[in-house]
């Protein structure tokens, strides 16, 4: 054996003289190389591609993003998809396409950590450029972004950071795939699975079974969707699906039979939020009979009301009971006729009818309201009492109480009322704005998700998760590439 032992001093001098560039310098060399190749290679195409994707997505989301809950969720999912798509396609081929070149350079002294770090820097620049482009396009396509941010002063910066970090985490995941795959074909075969996995397990759009909730915790899309949804203030925007469905049913007929008792119970229910809103509202009911009649006649619904049908059919039994018990006919019943009284004749007739089974036989016909009004000479009556003063000031609550405490109405509790109308008319009766407000806010209230709360803690947590993902994926990429010398030739 040769004596190659050297003194420490000379060994140090020799080592210093012969030392090669360290990891830091190699990072700079390789970042420069990547930037140079960005121009010559086709990598630059990812920038216009990002702008095109943003334009297409904005067409779908611009109407209601930041305005409604559904729009926020849709927008959050769309932006998450955009970021993951951009990130993944930036780096899916970058390592595997030059694996053999890398192996040669590794043999010649290239540190894997430097190589991956240079890719991290380069990909960060690429993701940043894509994020800026995407936001620019979305703004141009008139997506209504809020102006004030939560973490920074500008909302665009806040959401830009979220999008950048999300893209970057996806980019690093793709870099890992590229580091593990030996060929571009393998990488591109794996890619769809990665994308589908990310999108399916994002958890916001698709209902996942319980066991898969754990899996979704390891997807970038899960946190991406939450982050963007939180930043769009999902929990404080109205939910419009229920209202929109109601509008679509506007002309659909609805109907049903309810009893007077049910109506009275509804009115007397102290927990009824809708009625409680109006209980203290005052109604100025001071008017003359003439004013009321004129107002009714001039209203658009009067003619419609006249055409409403009133079921005036009666059974023979009901007529006979009325003849026997009506106080109005009492004088008539006491009149003598043919040695007996009218009352006796009516009673005998009633008994005969009862025996013959004719009591349930219907007589009479269906009238319209107009016919009834004409029959009772309503117009002449109104003219006759034109100057008579009616009513006074009272609240809705008092009116309801008057109705619910009315003994005559209470006696008619079992009487059934058949309603037939359209959804629209029903809503108009209650008040369109009232129902809209109620439906949107109630549905929104039950759809709130704590993870979508627009708080600093939430946003910073999501940013932290993206950063952690990026670091873990890049470290795994380093680990995978450290075994590059074990590749089969």
């Amino acid at each position: 054996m040769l004596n190659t032992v050297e003194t420490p001093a000379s060994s140090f001098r020799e080592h210093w003289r012969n030392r090669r560039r360290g990891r830091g310098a190699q990072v700079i060399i390789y970042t420069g190389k990547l930037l140079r190749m960005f121009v010559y290679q086709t990598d630059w195409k990812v920038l216009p591609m990002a702008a095109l994707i943003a334009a297409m997505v904005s067409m779908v989301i611009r109407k209601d993003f930041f305005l409604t809950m559904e729009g926020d969720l849709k927008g959050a999912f769309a932006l998450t998809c955009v970021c993951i798509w951009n990130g993944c396609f930036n780096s899916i081929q970058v390592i595997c396409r030059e694996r053999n070149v890398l192996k040669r350079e590794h043999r010649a002294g290239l540190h894997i950590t430097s190589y991956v770090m240079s890719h991290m820097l380069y990909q960060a620049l690429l993701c940043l450029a894509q994020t800026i482009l995407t936001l620019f396009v979305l703004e141009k396509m008139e997506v209504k972004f809020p102006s004030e941010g939560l973490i920074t002063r500008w909302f665009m910066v806040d959401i830009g950071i979220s999008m950048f970090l999300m893209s970057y985490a996806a980019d690093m995941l793709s870099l890992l795939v590229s580091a593990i795959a030996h060929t571009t074909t393998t990488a591109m075969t794996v890619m769809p699975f990665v994308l589908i996995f990310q999108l399916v397990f994002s958890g916001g759009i698709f209902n996942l079974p319980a066991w898969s909730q754990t899996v979704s915790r390891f997807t970038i899309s899960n946190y991406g969707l939450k982050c963007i949804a939180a930043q769009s203030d999902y929990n404080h925007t109205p939910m419009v699906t229920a209202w929109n469905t109601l509008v679509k049913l506007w002309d659909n007929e609805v109907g049903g039979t309810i009893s007077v008792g049910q109506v009275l119970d509804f009115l007397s229910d102290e927990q009824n939020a809708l009625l409680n809103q109006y209980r203290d509202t005052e109604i100025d009911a001071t008017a003359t009979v003439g004013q009321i009649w004129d107002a009714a006649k001039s209203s658009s619904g009067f003619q419609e009301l006249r055409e409403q049908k009133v079921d005036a059919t009666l059974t023979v039994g009901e007529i006979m009971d009325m003849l026997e018990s009506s106080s109005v006919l009492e004088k008539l019943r006491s009149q003598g006729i043919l040695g007996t009284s009218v009352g006796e004749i009516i009673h005998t007739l009633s008994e005969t009818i009862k025996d013959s089974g004719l009591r349930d036989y219907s007589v009479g016909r269906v009238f319209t309201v107009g016919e009834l009004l004409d029959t009772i000479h309503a117009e002449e009556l109104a003219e006759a009492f034109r100057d008579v003063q009616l009513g006074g000031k009272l609240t809705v609550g008092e009116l309801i109480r008057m109705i619910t405490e009315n003994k005559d109405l209470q006696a008619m509790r079992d009487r059934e009322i058949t309603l037939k109308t359209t959804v629209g008319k029903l809503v108009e009766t209650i008040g369109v704005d009232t129902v809209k407000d109620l439906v949107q806010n109630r549905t929104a209230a039950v759809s709130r998700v704590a993870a979508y709360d627009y708080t600093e803690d939430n946003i910073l947590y999501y940013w932290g998760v993206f950063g952690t993902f990026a670091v873990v994926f890049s470290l795994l990429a380093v680990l995978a590439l450290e075994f590059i010398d074990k590749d089969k030739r």
Partner: protein
Amino acid sequence: MIPIDLNEMVVLPSLLTLLFDSVDWVQVIMTILLIFGLWGMFKKSGIPSWYALIPCAREYMFARCAGREPEGRVTSVVTFLLTVLDLVVIWMDYDTFESLVLLFDILSLSLEIVRFIYMIRIYAGIINVYGRRRRWMVMWILLRSVTSIIWGWNKKYQPSVKVEDLSSESLTEMNGKEASVMREGLTVNLKERTATEFFQKKYLLRDIHMSIQPGHMVLLLGGSGAGKTTFLNAVNGYEKAKAKVTLNGGDVYGEYKKMMYQVGFVPQQELMRGKDTVYHTLMDSAVMRLPAMVSRADRKERVEEVMKIFGLGPVRGNLVDKLSGGQKKRLSIAMEFISNPSLFILDEPDSGLDGVMARELMEQLRKIADQGKIVIVITHTPDRVIDLFDDVIVLAKDTHRTGRLAFFGSIKDARQFFGKEKMEQIVLSINRQEEGGEGRADEFIQKYSEVTQHA
């Protein structure tokens, strides 16, 4: 599904009941028949018959009988995974894990497809080894149990080749005589270079010892699969072997970080980034390979000098992709030459070049050797440039397909040793008969071993 309560002492009976209930008895009978058939087939191929009893192992061994070992590895692993998945699904309560059970079922289906494809490859191999008609493929796919019994126990069905036991000791004698370490030049004392594939140790190279003088240009000869590239990778320290390699007194393995810059390895393919310019490719190479102390001006000067040597000046601004085959080769060599290495290894630098260009390139390498460097070259067309070489290394596969040293010495001695005038004839003499050669590798390995023992 039968629910199993792990908290009770009924686990084992429940499990047995569960397994018993889920057994497909037709499949059991078919498996027994298959084992019986494979028992006979393994015996014919020289594999211990009891492997037929072990699930997964029998798939692998069957593939080896068919000469399809890589497919056997995949099939074996896939079979193992399918068995595990089957057991997991049997254990799972369908109502509780409905989605997971469905997922596993889909996974099983995918694996079954993989196994089916790989089994077709293996069947094609076994039909080839037994020299039978292709129509047997249908029988193997539909009724492999019955087919295996026919092939395993009918004397008319015999394999044309037996399975080689690669792990056994070589028949040819080991030299074991180490070359003495030189102060100047390259000394290789390689005991063995092994690789483990699928729990099996394989000898890629064994017993190679030599010393090469500085200024020598050495030709590395050998048939395909003889281990030429493996040998070069072992010499430059990138893929370490059980060996001692010293270059100008420095231990290549022990001081790899320092010594790696004294070895330039030019791979067979032009492994460069096609979208970078020639100048930047060389400049980056210089920055990476030259010591950090070298000034910017000196580095630039060195790049210019190397471009001049290899005739790359006129294309300095061109993208690598735009260069001709010869220019790419020269650039690839220049990238390694830039650090002025003492040992220069080139794996088929003349592949894809015409005779004139190949000659020019080799002459350039001769000039490099003349500067006192060692140049080792693999080439498949040695005779047109043989006058430029000083020495020749001949590697050959022995009976166990291990790369062994069949000769190392001057060109003149090589001609005398092999009794052949041309280098290509030497390669033919050591190549296996099924490769069109004379199959005399063991003879020359043995002869060289004896010669060096007595030297």
